[in-house]
């Protein structure tokens, strides 16, 4: 009998703590889940082998494909997709540098509706970065939504003439919050 009573009390305590713990959880709302999954295009490589590419740049459309899962239990939150570079420049293997502004990014949200805003080409910067998609909501009435997001990249759109030959690299971090 005492054991049963203890169990009931324990459940009651846990139940009461439930909301308290939920309130301590940082983020857009209680019990919300936000997951960015990479489906394809996890590496972007721009190879310049023609003068046309050097003068006019290279563009890759729909190169990276993300799935954004947003479970907004309270249906009261909006999240956004941002991106930023992890270094101030593209570093070359031969100690040359290339400006981040040579890389531009944009996001296309397939099937997005409502308040979602797609921005035009954004020049890459360091953190906090640039917004690619804003106003991403969960479903009306609460629940989850999956968004199919494609990322376009372009490099050297304003020309890379006289940029020292090298192998340049940078990491782009995509962040949803």
């Amino acid at each position, binding site marked *: 009998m005492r054991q049963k009573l203890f*169990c009931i009390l324990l459940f009651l305590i846990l139940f009461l703590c439930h909301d308290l713990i939920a309130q301590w959880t940082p983020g857009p709302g209680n019990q919300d889940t936000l997951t960015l999954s990479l489906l394809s295009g*996890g*590496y972007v*490589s721009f190879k310049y082998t*023609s003068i046309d590419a050097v003068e006019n740049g290279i563009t890759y459309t729909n190169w990276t494909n993300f799935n954004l899962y947003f479970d907004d239990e309270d249906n009261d939150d909006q999240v956004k997709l941002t991106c930023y570079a992890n270094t101030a420049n593209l570093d070359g293997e031969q100690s040359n540098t290339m400006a981040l502004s*040579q890389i531009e990014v944009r996001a296309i949200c397939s099937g997005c509706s409502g308040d979602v805003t797609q921005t035009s080409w954004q020049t890459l910067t360091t953190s906090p970065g640039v917004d690619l998609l804003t106003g991403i909501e969960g479903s009306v009435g609460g629940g989850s939504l999956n968004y199919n997001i494609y990322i376009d990249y372009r490099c050297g759109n304003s020309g890379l*003439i*006289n940029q020292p030959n090298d*192998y340049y*690299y940078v990491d782009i971090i995509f962040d949803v919050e």
Partner: protein
Amino acid sequence: MKKIALILCGAFIYLASYGQAVNDKAVIPVSVNLNQILRLNIVSGGNIEFTFNTITDYTGGLTGTQYQTTFNVTSSVIYDVNFYSESANMQGNDDAANTIASGFVALSVTDNAGGATVDATWQLLDDIVGIGNQATLIDASPAGAATAAANQWVVSWECATANTDGSLLGQPADRYSVNTFIVVSGN
């Protein structure tokens, strides 16, 4: 007690799994591989043939637009163009014993006003013999596509004129030849 332990364990798992992620990140590595582009294309005048038929040809030499080489350059970097000849002498094709100095032929590059520093003086071929003696006649030309006017060049050639070693009168009749090299390199 076992039941209590199980309940506590279950409660712990429940609480631990409760705090779901509310933001997420993905990292995409980006690389840019810049290969240097330097290409030279001879458009016309890849073989210059001076033919001496009259005594005036011998005394005045041969010059004119028919003795021109047109070439263009495609470059992703600022570039130079150097010239050098293969030999100080031109050897006769019909009789190998016949030779004349390659200085009877001279070349000059026309400045296309595209931003490069151009040495338009006449260069005797026997003054620029070998890669070690090459003359930089086009210096620091802006980079760009071959279609750009700044990257299109004209080389004029003369033989037996005042810009060269002079008259060929007295030289054995033969067909003489020498190769001249045009070298494009990054500035």
